[in-house]
């Protein structure tokens, strides 16, 4: 049995890492060699996953850069190699933040839109973000509400006075200034005249306000607002790259930076810098990145990554059996999600930002309801407060109630879900499928056996064994946590055995409980590489492709050089070819 590794790594890694996976060839990221995935017969082949070569294939989700092992060829050839750059529609959270910054409207209208559709680990994958009729209608409703609110305070919305300036001149000015902020670049002459014509059409027979209102409604439903449109700077084309690539324009770079680091539109400083053409050199961009990371808007933006990566929004709706877990209430669910986000915020902005801290710190943030489940004394009220959890029981993200709840069944724990999560989201590995055409008939279970005993059969009996041997022995390490994350020393009347085994990783071996597991994972190069890969996927709204080897390699090096400080990884994203360039658009 083998696993398919989804994160390539350079051959410069310690030799010990090369022993991880049978049949998987690791390659230097900068020599242009492609790693072949698992051996023939494991059910996965390079061709079966439509690698980066399929990017751009019409009608294929592979345009997202469906990339798996082997797709990511290494190519630091000296020519920029940015990978694909599909058109990105604003996500729900981007929409909410954008209208907050554009109009000062904090009603978060996108929260009631139909959910962003998901391909891959994140809900911001570009090719999945289509606009079905239900969403078009939601855009209309939101635009009408937002515009209605905005025109109720014309003095705040329109800088000029239509009486003093004259209505037509004032409308012209409004279209120009509002349009530029909404489109995140100056309007073209056609856009300017089109919106002014719209204003006149709706002014006619009504009033100035009605004309302005129509402009706001139209802008909020138009393509340059809803999509992050990029064509690049054709004067900088690198024709020797294949395909030819272009650097982003200063305005496009302003949007890339703001949506990555702030989850929102560029602020005035970014637009002003773009006006002056000062978002093109590495130094200019680095200066903005430093400023932006120090801004409060970086916090909710980074929360977006963790929230999506850990599927934290699902905590609110996950179903548990009320007789098994009577403590599982809507307020506890909300607090679980808030706890993990507070912990992430603390690691990123108050502590050291390091991956090991995310994975091993016993610090957390609890209110009375959470404290009761954790068994922490002395916490009252609904507000979260910083506490030290028992370091023998709790260690970083993985042992928090939110994760254990998400990775638990309605009435029990789930070694399978927990092991699978570690494999997929922390190690970026894919569990190979069982052989074709087998009939899986799980062995009978006896009442009264522990969860561990029940699942142990999985890893002893073929054909279950082939897959479950990769999941369950990791998941068993979490057996001290029930289906909502509460510590337990006893399961079904027997002492919990939370010993586990890691295999097919660079930190193979036995471990004791999730605390022991987390300590091992924090030492794993595969885990830190996976963090890089996941941030790449999130930052670019797509999977990695053959063309991204150099970008990923530079991120890995920067991350390693910072002692795995995730903040340094964010900076590194903005320095990659993938961030600075895009393929020339060939309609």
């Amino acid at each position, binding site marked *: 049995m083998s696993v398919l590794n989804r994160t390539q790594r350079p051959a410069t890694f310690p030799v010990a890492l090369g022993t991880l996976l049978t049949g998987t060839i690791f390659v230097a990221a900068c020599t242009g060699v492609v790693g072949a995935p698992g051996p023939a017969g494991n059910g996965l082949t390079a061709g079966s996953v*439509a690698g980066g070569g399929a990017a*751009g294939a*019409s*009608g*294929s*989700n*592979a*345009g*997202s*850069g*469906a*990339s798996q092992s082997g797709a990511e060829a290494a190519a630091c050839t000296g020519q920029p190699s940015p990978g694909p750059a599909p*058109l990105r*529609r604003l996500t729900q959270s981007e929409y909410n933040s954008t209208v907050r910054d554009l109009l000062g409207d904090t009603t978060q209208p996108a929260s009631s839109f139909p*959910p962003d*559709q*998901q*391909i*891959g680990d994140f809900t911001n994958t570009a090719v*999945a973000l*289509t*606009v*079905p*009729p239900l*969403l078009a*209608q939601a855009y*209309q409703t939101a635009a009408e509400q937002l515009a209605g609110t905005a025109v109720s305070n014309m003095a705040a919305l329109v800088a000029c006075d239509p009486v003093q300036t004259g209505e037509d001149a004032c409308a012209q000015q409004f279209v120009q200034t509002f349009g530029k902020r909404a489109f995140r670049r100056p309007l073209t002459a056609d856009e300017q005249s*089109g*919106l002014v014509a719209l204003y006149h059409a*709706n002014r006619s*027979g009504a009033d100035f306000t*009605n004309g302005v209102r129509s402009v706001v*409604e*139209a802008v909020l*439903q*138009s*393509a340059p607002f809803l999509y992050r*449109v990029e064509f690049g700077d054709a004067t900088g084309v690198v024709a020797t790259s294949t395909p030819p690539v272009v650097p982003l324009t200063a305005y496009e770079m302003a949007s890339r930076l703001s949506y990555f680091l702030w989850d929102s539109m560029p602020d005035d400083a970014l637009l002003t810098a773009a006006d002056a053409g000062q978002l093109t050199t590495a130094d200019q961009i680095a200066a903005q990145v430093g400023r932006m990371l120090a801004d409060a808007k970086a916090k909710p933006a980074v929360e977006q990554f963790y929230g999506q990566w850990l599927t934290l929004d*699902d905590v*609110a*709706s996950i*179903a548990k*059996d*009320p007789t098994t877990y009577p403590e599982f209430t*809507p307020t506890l*669910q909300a607090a679980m999600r808030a706890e993990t986000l507070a912990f992430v915020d603390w690691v990123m902005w108050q502590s050291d930002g390091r991956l090991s801290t995310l994975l091993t710190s016993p610090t957390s943030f609890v209110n009375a309801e959470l404290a009761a489940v954790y068994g922490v004394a002395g916490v009252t009220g609904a507000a979260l407060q910083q506490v030290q959890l028992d370091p023998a029981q709790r260690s970083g993200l993985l042992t928090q109630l939110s994760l254990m709840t998400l990775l638990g*069944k*309605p009435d029990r724990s789930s070694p399978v879900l927990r092991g*699978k999560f570690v494999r997929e989201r922390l190690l970026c590995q894919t569990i190979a*499928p069982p052989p074709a055409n087998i009939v*899986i*008939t799980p062995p*009978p*279970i006896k009442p009264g056996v522990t969860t561990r005993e029940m699942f142990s059969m999985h890893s002893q009996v073929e054909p279950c064994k082939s*897959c479950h041997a990769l999941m369950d022995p990791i998941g068993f390490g979490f057996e001290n946590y029930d289906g909502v994350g509460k510590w337990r020393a006893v399961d079904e009347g027997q002492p919990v055995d939370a010993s586990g085994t890691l295999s097919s990783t660079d930190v193979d071996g036995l471990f004791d409980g999730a605390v022991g597991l987390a300590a091992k994972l924090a030492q794993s190069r595969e885990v830190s590489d996976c963090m890089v890969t996941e941030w790449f996927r999130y930052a670019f709204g*797509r*999977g990695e492709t053959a063309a991204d080897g150099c970008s990923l390699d530079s991120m890995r090096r920067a991350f390693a050089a910072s002692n795995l400080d995730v903040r340094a990884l964010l900076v590194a994203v903005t320095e990659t070819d993938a961030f600075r360039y895009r393929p020339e*658009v*060939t*309609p």
Partner: protein
Amino acid sequence: MTARFDRRALLGAGAAMAATSLLPRRARGADGGAPPTRLVIMFTANGTIYNQWLPQGTGSSFTLSPILAPLAPFQSKLLVLDGINVLSAANGPGDDHMKGMGHMLTGIELLPGTTQGGAGTPAGFAGGISVDQRIAADIGGQTRFPSLEFGVMVQSSDVWSRMIYSGANQPLPPMEDPMKAFSRIFTGSQLNPAALTALLARRKSVLDYAQGSLASLAPRVSSDDRVRLQQHADSIRQIESQLLAQTSACSAPTVTAIDLTNNANYPAVGKVQMDILAAALACGQTRVASLQWSHSVSDVPMSWINVTSGHHTLSHKPDTDTVSQGQLVQINTWYAQQFAYLLAKLDSVAEGSGTLLDNCMVVWVNELSKGNVHSHKPLPVVIAGGCGGALKTGRVVSFSSAQPHNNLLVTLADLMGTNITTFGNPAYCTGPLSLA
């Protein structure tokens, strides 16, 4: 909070007549002829217990199974299909649940992508249009909504959770909030005629501008991006026609706000969604609708029937685990009760010489056959309603050789008047079934 809608609020925009119509009301075809036929798809997850699902007997002489027993009042209006095989699911990316869900109504492989399932190669969304949308493409223009998609606590938006597609990589999300569904379909404008006229004029000019912005961008982007912009433009076109159409005076159900995150509300949400769906059909708002309970791999614990384990968890238990098997029968029987509720609702509306149900084709499907082996054959399919007399109901149809489910899909299309000879990936489609 509870919101009750005054029935007068249901009057269409600008309509001034008194709200006198009550269910049941009679609908007629546009020219006063035969009432229109309608298609309704209902989905439930994780397969069934086939030997407790399949009725005993064949043809018109059969005894309903334990799972289908709640359908007894409609036995003469049922077609139970035995021997449908989702042949396509042997191929393409995705795990068995993903494939089952994505192929179910499209009959075509999933696109390659980056969603990793429990097994199989990673996948994107489905690679083609679903049959209901293919039908809606032909007849959707006759009604205010080409189709209406309802969901019951679907709560996720990935390939496991989408069954309706307007095209490759174009999943259509269901309406999950009954209040919003109600408002979209039934709530007319409260504006006076002059204000309404002004609003509609502004809306038209605004949407024209939005369309223009998409049209000017589309030629300048890559072909992949252009497909998405085209769908966006199509979507705006659809809401344009909706806002211009007037909701006819028509009776609608009472809808109250429900917490959509509380699992205990699952039955109540389902019920009100069925109420709205039935009323939308009765009121001629659409001819194509679907109802999706949860999603494939649904792990809903049905505490209200004393089943504490999650549905998907139970569906993995071995055949020899009689307790779990019994609970799976309970779960599927509960879903049959919900199906019966929907049928009863439709059957309560007099229409033409019969009932609304007689003019419907209500199809209950699943993404799997048997949960613990993730099989795709035989697919449990129940069709209810006469489709305006086109279906010969009151039968169990056992196919002597397994039929690719593409054959079923093309049959549904044909019965709804879409004149096509193949559907989905033609490699799996050998021709329509004879259900008449």
